[in-house]
């Protein structure tokens, strides 16, 4: 599967491309809905780790959330 990675220098561009914006420190979408993890925790701009395939799953830059995502694929 193709993977696109970004770093701190390109994070703004990716966030904008995904139709997200900052509301204070928190990320929201164009309808002002708060962007959250699979556990419904809000995601701050500084924590943003990307979006995974399958219902647009947003994650923080945290390996445990990555593991949680792959674990959820084992159902």
């Amino acid at each position: 599967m193709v993977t696109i990675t970004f770093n701190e220098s390109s994070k703004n561009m990716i966030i904008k491309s995904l139709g997200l914006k900052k509301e204070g420190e928190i990320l929201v979408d164009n309808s002002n809905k708060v962007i959250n993890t699979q556990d419904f925790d809000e995601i701050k701009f500084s924590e943003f780790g990307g979006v995974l395939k399958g219902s647009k799953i947003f994650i923080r830059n945290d390996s445990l959330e990555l593991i949680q995502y792959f674990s959820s694929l084992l159902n």
Partner: protein
Amino acid sequence: MPIEDVLAKLFGSLISVNVDKSSHIHLDRNFIQIDDKKITDLKKVKEIHKEIEDGLKEYADEETYPANIIHKDLFAEFRGLEALTIKEKESLKKLKEIFGEESIRPILLARSIHLAIEEKKPRIMIEKLLTQLDKDFPGDGKKILNLISAGYFDELIIPMIEICKRQHPENYNYKFKEFYYSLLQFFPTAIFVNNDTSIRKIISEINKRFRLRKIPYIRIHTIGKNNIKKVDEALDKLKTPTEYDVEKNTFTTNSGLSAQTSLLKISKNRS
């Protein structure tokens, strides 16, 4: 739309590189790396950024994006977990059924590291994953990795699910977890005998553990007829002031190998 078409659309005719399903595209403000090809022409970089931005915006109302989009810091782990969940999906599903969502996580990460080592992935990637394992699962992470690396996870632990099912059909789940967690809890007291372990070494390892204060038992795990014979001979030759009872559980692994767990229960501790 196939992913290659999507990317071709994203990049347009700005660059001439082959993008396939396993491609890794890294975006930096000043350059773009597509697998081995690095684009540093700033004008071109900006144009591609714009193409990607416009391309992704088209997916605003779709269920999903055409690719996984992740922070570079997560990439090594992402690739490891991706490869693992494709290769070992069935055995992992079996473990998840028993362990549940939380406890499967250190196993997932440890197995992905083992796979990366086996596939000789770059050292820097493996070191990063090992650091992550230690940080996220400081208690059991490395023990689990050691069990996997020694072959005991596949040859002993996973087959033990079926053994527990046969021996304790009503509560095999509980019995298996009891076996697994005691293995981790008393990891320092366990002895794993393989083809390179001599009888003398087995005896010395048992004696070393008998010297531990308040040790409740020692478990000797082994696979293969010759190794079982070595353990039996070592126990016959063992001379110790510690009083203990031996319980042996022999079984056959899924790959048809004989295996044995010898439990040395210490009945009188000198401490």
